[in-house]
């Protein structure tokens, strides 16, 4: 079968051919890639032409709503009734959007993919509730985690040292009710006003608080405090102060320090205990008389607060030293690791050459131009679909006339290698290329077959050139 002319292809796409004609054409199209190319070209023209005509629709004039209805034509009295033949009406071309070309009549190669309609599944009320619950569950989990994190962060936050007064005031309840009662009486009798924070800290704790902390006191009392009898009110008072200092030294105060500072280091508490015990040991023997007792108490408190401040300083120093050590270690690690050389700016990746560049084509052409150049239809490799056709300089093809372009049909095999079929019409007097496996003449046209495929593959393709 000879090549298909454009009119036949239009008739084919318009659905105007008989079934046997369609079968013949389809068989030809399966074997003739040139006609396949032409068919694609015709389809494009047909779709574009239909789109253009459809774009000039009645809507392009005045809107139909503003138009008067067509005036009915009065019946001619002499008119005879017309018997209309029952012919199926062909639907006219609807006005289509420009982006939707005419798909043409149904053919296997025209069939569009089946439409897919995506419909979400219906969700029952129970599923909706579950989904909501899940969402709330996640929110609750996030809240719990955030809350726990906040609490932990608060725990880890460093707290400054509490004022000595506060600590001593906290330590004050170590005095038992039996011990405080005489002291209160003695104070009432002497009518002596408390003066100074140390005195206030020692002044008569609330019995309820004292009772509630009795157990703590019992465990916190040192044997020294137990052995001291309450002989005189002054002594009682002094002993209260001593008890306070001892309680702080043996546990209560240390516990307060730990809680306040968050310091879990046992040695710190031990130090605090030792410091305060030493203070108490110094204070107790010299306690002689009320003035002396008051002085001792003030001294104890001053020393306690000093010790606490010292402890706090030490703790801070320790923390700072640890942090500095960590920082230094980090710096040393960074310094010892291989210095990172600045990478030179990555050169932009070279753009891969286009197929036209690879095929050295300076102008893409269609079948018509190829036929014009060659004085007849272009030759093709049977069974292979060409990618495109184009013109290359005559100088680029050894054996071709340098002054005229060569028509190059470009193919690509399954491995992406380009196969080039060059053709140039032989002019009278033009030297015929030396016949070889990849150069020959075919009906007045010089042919060259070359490309990126191995020679044996090219030879097999040569046998299929039509």
């Amino acid at each position, binding site marked *: 079968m000879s090549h298909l002319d454009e*009119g036949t292809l239009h008739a084919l796409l318009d659905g105007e051919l008989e079934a046997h004609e369609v079968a013949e054409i389809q068989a030809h199209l399966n074997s003739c890639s040139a006609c396949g190319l032409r068919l694609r070209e015709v389809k494009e023209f047909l779709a*574009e*032409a239909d789109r*253009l005509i459809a774009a000039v629709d009645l809507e392009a*004039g005045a809107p139909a709503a503003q138009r008067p209805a067509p005036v009915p*034509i009065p019946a001619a009295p002499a*008119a005879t009734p*017309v018997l209309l033949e029952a012919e199926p009406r*062909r639907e006219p071309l609807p006005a289509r959007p420009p982006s939707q070309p005419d798909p043409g009549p149904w053919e296997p190669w025209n069939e569009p993919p089946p439409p897919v309609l995506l419909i979400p599944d219906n969700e029952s009320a129970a599923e909706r509730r579950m989904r909501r619950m899940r969402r709330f569950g996640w929110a609750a989990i996030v809240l719990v985690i955030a809350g726990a994190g906040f609490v932990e962060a608060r725990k880890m936050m460093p707290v400054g040292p509490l004022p000595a007064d506060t600590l001593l005031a906290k330590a004050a309840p170590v005095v038992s009710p039996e011990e405080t009662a005489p002291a209160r009486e003695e104070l009432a009798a002497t009518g002596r006003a408390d003066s100074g924070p140390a005195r206030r800290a020692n002044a008569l704790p609330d019995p309820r608080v004292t009772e509630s902390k009795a157990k703590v006191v019992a465990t916190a009392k040192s044997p020294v405090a137990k052995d001291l009898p309450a002989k005189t009110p002054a002594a009682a008072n002094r002993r209260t102060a001593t008890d306070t200092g001892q309680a702080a030294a043996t546990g209560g105060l240390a516990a307060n320090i730990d809680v306040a500072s968050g310091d879990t280091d046992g040695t710190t508490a031990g130090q605090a205990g030792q410091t305060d015990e030493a203070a108490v040991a110094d204070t107790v023997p010299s306690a002689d008389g009320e003035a002396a007792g008051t002085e001792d108490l003030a001294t104890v408190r001053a020393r306690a607060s000093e010790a606490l401040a010292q402890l706090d300083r030490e703790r801070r120093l320790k923390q700072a030293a640890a942090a500095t050590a960590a920082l230094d270690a980090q710096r040393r690690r960074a310094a010892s690791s291989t210095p990172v050389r600045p990478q030179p700016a990555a050169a932009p990746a070279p753009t891969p050459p286009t197929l036209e560049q690879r095929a050295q084509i300076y102008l893409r052409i269609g079948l018509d131009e190829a036929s014009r150049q060659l004085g007849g239809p272009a030759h093709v490799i049977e069974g292979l679909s060409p990618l495109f056709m184009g013109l290359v300089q005559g100088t680029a093809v050894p054996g071709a006339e340098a002054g005229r372009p060569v028509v190059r049909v470009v193919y690509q095999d399954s491995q992406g290698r380009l196969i080039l079929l060059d053709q140039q019409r032989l002019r009278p007097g033009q030297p015929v290329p030396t016949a070889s496996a990849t150069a020959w003449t075919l009906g007045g046209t010089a042919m060259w077959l070359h490309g990126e495929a191995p020679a044996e593959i090219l030879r097999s393709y040569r046998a299929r050139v039509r």
Partner: protein
Amino acid sequence: MTADLTQLFEQYYESLVRMLYRRVGDRDRAEDLAQETFARAVAAPPNNPRPWLFAVALNLVREDGRRSATRGRKLELLRAEHDQPANAPDAELERKEEAERIRAALATLNERDREALLLRAEGFDYEEIAATLGLAKGAIGTTLARARRRLVEAYRAQERGQAKDRGKHVAS
């Protein structure tokens, strides 16, 4: 109007007006010509109505075209089409401009090619086109092939020309 003619009117009037509008570019004129065509159908009822109606309509277009040329009506129409309201939306203007370009491209076709194309657009098969235009059925494929190719090429040329004009306008 008899029942058959009423049916004929309902069946083909819109298609006829659309084809005539694409051909003459003026809706009023297209409707007048369609009315005239049906008036002739009433006077001499056709046996094969669709090709007959369209053939008569195209003949009327040709006659009208000749008369219009003498009256300079074309100029009026062109002027009317170019006198767009200043505040017309861009999309509407663009659509009208494109329609003008297409009509200009259609005008470059010869009479027979253009009519074959317009009849095909109205759903005529090759046999009906051949009957309407008095051609052989075997020639319709080639006629349509040539008409479509020329229409597309003329339209593309128009587009290129306009783009060039716009470029000059911007440069100046």
